[in-house]
């Protein structure tokens, strides 16, 4: 009976849409990639899209790159026709800001394998999605609806040794999505360094 009143209370409350909410249309964006090409969400119609916020100086990003965990995911899913977009929203003069040349150098050094590396100058895209930390992960389905928003996995340590023990939420969300199933864990609290807007 108590539950019921809480339920009624929540039913009364209309849901108003916000930026990048799971179950709603993902915000569009128009950004240059590291090769100067303009990239927008509409380019990937009919595909699953992964957005990954990154900052090369952040220890949590390093955890997933120096262990090759991120690259492995990128290779696996771009191989399955998923578009993987790595986004740098750090602004000029701040840690993790990339010029196109710097992005290209790092991509080679780390053997990164996303579909594209996006340089979010002005941070419009980062703010539209409400990206908070690096890494912050989003998964968008072929209809352009956000199906996952949150952390890369369930272990907020900065230690790469913890990766094998962790449950990777992005991997899980993509596996379920590709199998036509609903995403079980569709939001989680992202962990990492603050995005340097």
């Amino acid at each position, binding site marked *: 009976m108590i539950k019921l009143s809480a339920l009624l209370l929540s039913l009364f409350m209309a849901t108003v849409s916000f930026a990048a909410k799971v179950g709603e249309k993902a915000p569009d964006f128009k950004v240059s990639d590291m090769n100067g090409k303009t990239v927008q969400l509409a380019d990937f119609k009919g595909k699953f899209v992964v957005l990954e916020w990154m900052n090369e100086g952040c220890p949590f990003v390093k955890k997933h790159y120096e262990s090759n965990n991120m690259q492995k995911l990128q290779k696996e899913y771009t191989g399955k026709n998923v578009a993987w977009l790595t986004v740098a929203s750090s602004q000029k003069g701040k840690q993790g800001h990339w010029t196109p040349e710097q992005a290209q150098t790092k991509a080679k050094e780390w053997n990164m394998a996303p579909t594209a590396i996006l340089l979010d100058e002005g941070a419009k895209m980062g703010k539209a999605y409400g990206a*908070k930390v690096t890494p912050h992960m989003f998964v968008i389905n072929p209809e352009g609806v956000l199906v996952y928003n949150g952390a890369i996995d369930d272990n907020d340590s*900065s*230690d790469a040794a913890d990766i094998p023990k962790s449950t990777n939420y992005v991997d899980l969300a993509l596996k379920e999505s590709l199998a036509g199933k609903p995403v079980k864990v569709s939001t989680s*609290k992202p962990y990492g360094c*603050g995005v340097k807007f």
Partner: protein
Amino acid sequence: MKLSVIVLILFCTMNLFAAESEMQRRDHVIVSLIADHDQISSNQDFKVGLKFIIEKGWHIYWKNPGDSGTAPKIKWEQSKVQISSFSWPTPHIFHIEPLANYGYEKEVIFPMEVKFSGNNFQLAGEASWLVCKIECIPGKAQLKLTIPVGEEEISFSDSKEIEKYLSLKAIATNDIKLSLDQDASTFKLKFSSEDMDLKSFEKAYFFPNDGTYIAHAAPQEMSTDKNHIELTIKKSDSLTENPEFIDGVLALEKKGEPRLSFEVSSEAKGAGLSLWMALAFAFLGGLILNLMPCVFPVISIKILGFVDSSQKTNTEISNHGWAYTAGVLLSFLILSGALLILRSLGQSLGWGFQLQSPYFVIFMMVLFFLIALNLWGVFEIGENLAGVGNKVSRQKGYGGSFFTGILATLVATPCTAPFMGSALGFAITLPPIQSVFIFLMLGFGMAVPYLILSYFPSWIRKLPKPGPWMITFKKILAIPMLLTVVWLGWVLSLQLQSPENIKNEGAWISYSETELQKLRDEGAPVFVDFTAAWCITCQVNKKVVLNTDKIQLAFKEAGVVLMKADWTNQDPVITKALAAFDRNSVPLYILYTKNKDDKPLVLPEILTDDIVLNSLKKL
């Protein structure tokens, strides 16, 4: 040269005498373990602290770090020492636009409680943390702390340091009530207090325990009136469901005074359940009580009484109804009053507490045994004991009905749990008068069927006429009485056993707060069974579900640690643990999932195989 020698000597002597681990310098922090004792006795409780000295401009994090960051942790090496998790000093907010973090700068100590018995004390563990300015750097350090064990305990000046940070932890209080109101985009938190002049504070800030609820960087708009502070806080963009309740720390400031902070929690149901509704539910709960197995033996006495009543006049019968009602109400009044008074004296008691006393149990055993013998016809006490027997005198019978009411209440209270658990938990948090009214309403609900019957004696007269069959009937009714005696005897035997004997029962380990915390930190799922020997529902669940091979196997396969919180005897730790779930009665079943930040699952009071198996799927 000389100076360095002095420094060296000072440093060495410090380490010789002070119970402090070696201070380890890492990027932007110096970290160490300190203790509030220089020497401890072989069996005592004391405190240790994980201490950080932080470089200017850098910060480390609270348990909810805010938009980014991570809380510091410590992983102990296997040791026999029982050690609690951190107590978290109330944090400060760091705005790093557009984000916000909760944490500490300059210096912080995370105090921990140690329960120690043994001959040598050694603690070793690995601390890990994240320190950030704008950039972030994770750190790790192996820390070791040895404290000599001797005849006497010697406290050390570090005790003041630890005390200081312990005092910076939010105060647990019932004085500040939080009611939660929310729409799609904002929370409205209304804090109210009877004892504190909340209006006098100039600044208020709410730090939520759960990092996913609020937009940390958004300003918290404050308004005050009389004894209220209201904070309007923007919800986190990624929050998809309205949470049922919110908890955290309320920090209050006024000019020239140190900041005060309080642990606060709301329950949407608390706000949603008005007093009238609570009274109505209590009434309904009381009605249902008549169907509970523990009330049954007493009801059987009543049935005899009513059958007998068919020879009485209408007024007499309705007077009996009122006498019974008065007995029930008076005992509810006394029980709830005693509970409230003992609680205000700082005792941790829960509903049904009278059965936690072996003396009370013995008294009830004797009483029920006598009633059974009486029903069996071994002797006749008649009206003086329980209003039974067919020689009830017309004038004196009211005492019997009154006493039946008292008896019914005393045995029925532990049975209120399954239906009334959370409502009673809510009632106990209300101002005393209101909660007494709720308990009275519960009693009234229990008495009302008889009261109604007593006004419509024609219904009673439809019952068979008194005759020889009553003697047989009485003999049959003696059986539930004797079963009750057996049950009480079993309760008593468990109460009188040394705790160790009941502690480890098969796969179940006994409840311990530190052990639970440790298991959760290790990411082990834990199932806690809050139970008591005198709780019949608990025993049924155990027999039919929890201890069956099927369910035990399922627990094992899921790697769930089984913990039993036995409330048969009075136990303040368990009472407190129950209160954390807003309960003050058993049974209560809690499943903690692997992720320690997840809310634990609360299972229903009446279990089935499917309920348990489905809950295990959510691990």
